[in-house]
Each structure stands twice: as structure tokens, then as C-alpha cells.
């Protein structure tokens, strides 16, 4: 079943298909935040991120003629972005799951040596501490957390993007949040962290 297309998106797509580059610029500006979230969570190497974002939008431009509004535009773009990131990781021979599968052992503690350089920030507040902990999760878990909490996508939308059943998305999300809470509790002073935001 087709989704009722968002009027603005439908108009933008029509203008892009007609070769209007201003329309594509507006389109990029509208969706670059979403794409950057996915790339940020999937790709740890800061040097590669902007190039990947560019490749994603070029791919979107090449394929926009074939978009039939069978899902939301944001879901379609996010799916392209997610799979572009997976291709990038495969090319660099970086596994999607550190232990080969998304089982509980993939949440096992890992040492800081695998942290990306930008994770070595001074962990002064809960935000940076949490970011450091999120960085230790496998890329799909990080992506689910961001798509759900920052981009406010539903389980179904995330499932479409990542080719996962809704139940699996929900389960990954629960496990990731549970693990984050446990890690923060076990690692840091309880009072210091948990009362910082209350």
C-alpha cells in the first residue's frame, strides 16, 4: 500500500525530476540532518563521514526518478544511507557486530583501544560519558538508538530502513538502553550521574 505523499516532498521530487537543482539543494538541506545521524552512528572514522554523506545524496539524486512514495521519503533516504554505510564498512572490512552476531555477547565490555579518536573526550558530564558508552555499542544498535530517540522514527520505520522485523528493532532498542544504564551505573558514581539531570 502506498503512503499518502507529503505534499512538500512530492513537490520537491517533481521539481528535482524536472532538473531543478535549487529544489535538490532544498531537499539536501531538509534531509542532511537525518543522513548525518546515520553516518555518524555507523561510521567511526571522522575523515570518511562527509564523503559518505556526499555519496549518499548523489545516489539519492540518481535514484529519485524511481521513488514511488511506497514509504515515507525519510525512510527511503535513511535506508539508502544505512546501506551505503554497510557497504563502506564491508569495504573497510569492519564487522557490523564485533562478535559476529547481535547476540548478548556483542554487548560485552570492550577496552577503550577500539574507541574512535573523537570518543577520547574528557568525560566530564553525563552527555559525554553516555556518548562514550554508545560508541562502544555495535553500529546497528547505535543507529537504532538515534533513529528512535533523535529522529523519532517508529519501530516499523526503523525496521524498513534496516531490513529487520519490528520485534527485533524493539528488542535491540531495549537491550541497548538496558546495557547503557547498567554500564553507566557500574562505571560511575551513581549520585553524580543520575542526579545531574533531575
Amino acid at each position: 500500500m502506498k503512503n499518502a505523499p507529503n505534499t512538500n516532498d512530492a513537490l520537491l521530487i517533481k521539481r528535482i525530476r524536472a532538473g531543478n537543482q535549487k529544489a535538490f539543494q532544498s531537499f539536501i538541506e531538509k534531509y542532511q540532518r537525518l543522513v548525518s545521524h546515520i553516518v555518524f552512528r555507523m561510521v567511526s572514522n571522522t575523515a570518511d563521514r562527509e564523503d559518505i554523506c556526499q555519496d549518499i545524496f548523489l545516489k539519492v539524486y540518481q535514484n529519485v526518478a524511481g521513488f514511488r512514495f511506497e514509504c515515507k521519503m525519510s525512510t527511503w533516504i535513511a535506508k539508502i544511507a544505512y546501506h551505503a554505510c554497510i557497504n563502506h564498512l564491508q569495504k573497510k572490512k569492519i564487522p557490523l557486530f564485533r562478535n559476529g552476531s547481535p547476540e548478548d555477547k556483542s554487548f560485552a565490555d570492550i577496552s577503550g583501544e577500539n574507541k574512535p579518536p573523537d570518543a577520547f573526550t574528557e568525560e566530564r558530564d553525563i552527555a559525554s560519558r553516555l556518548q562514550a558508552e554508545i560508541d562502544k555499542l555495535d553500529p546497528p544498535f547505535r543507529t537504532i538508538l538515534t533513529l528512535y530517540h533523535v529522529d523519532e522514527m517508529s519501530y516499523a520505520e526503523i525496521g524498513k530502513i534496516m531490513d529487520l522485523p519490528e520485534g527485533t528493532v524493539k528488542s535491540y532498542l531495549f537491550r541497548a538502553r538496558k546495557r547503557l544504564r547498567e554500564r553507566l551505573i557500574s562505571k560511575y558514581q551513581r549520585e553524580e550521574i543520575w542526579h545531574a539531570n533531575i
Partner: protein
Amino acid sequence: MARQHLTDEDIQNILDGNSSQQKGDLEHHLETCKICQDHLRQYQSLYVELEKEPGFKLPRSFAKSIISKLTTQKTAPLVSPETVFVVLGILLGLGTTFYLVDMKPVVEIVRRIALPKIIIETAVFGPMKNLLSNLNTNLSLLLSAGLVMFTVAAVDRIILKLKHHKISL
């Protein structure tokens, strides 16, 4: 009987707004249990932090840079002027060489190596030899033309490869 403490899943379901048959029970327990209230508060703090924007932002000029990349791809000529000059130079050089240099010894060597008498006299090359002799064609001229065509084809292939590489980038 007092209800057992809320599980992580119970609390996450409450915060996610997922409906549950035991919702009333859970909320009633939460009102009275200090441990579960703490547990809930911890998750609330976690949710607040998770909703914050991650730390990677694209530059302001990002959209414009993609548009200019698209424009470059569209307007780039199939062959750049530099390449045209290179090809013309090569062709001119080859033509002049063929015109000025006596090619007879080269042709003789090529004929000896590439076209030995046995092969020429086989059924395959026999008709060709007859045709050439009938037409009284100058072999050196044919070889020169072949060489020029080969060079053009090779250069053309290189240019196409470079063009393809640029696009795939």
C-alpha cells in the same frame, strides 16, 4: 500482595508509551515503591540524554558542494581540451614520422616476422595476398594506417577509462 518490582522492560515500555494490560498495576506500584521510582528516574535521565543531537554536523556549504559536483559532472565535456591537444599531437607526430622516415626496412622486418611465407601461402592468408597484390596496395601505407588507428583506439580507451573513473568517484 505487593507487586514485584518493575523490570527494565516494564519501565522502558512506560516511557515509550507502549500499551500494556498491566499498566494500572505498574503505575500503582510506582507510586509507592522508592526502588522503582529510582529505576524510572535513571531511565528518564537516559532518555533525555539519548534525545540530544549526536556530535557530527555537516558544514553549512554541504548542499552547495553537492550541487556543484552534480553541475561539474553534467557540464564536463566528454573529452577535455587538453586531451584533444594530446591526441592531435600524437597523430601529427606519427603522421610526420611516417612521412619523413623510410619505412621500408621496418616493413620488411614486420613482414618477415608477422607474415612468414608459409602462413601467407595458407588458405587463410592466400586470398588476402592475392587481393593485396591485385590492388597493388602499398603495404607500408596500410601498416601506417593500421598503426594510427591502433594509437587512436588506445588513446580513446584511456580517455574513456579516465572519464568513467571520474564519474564513479
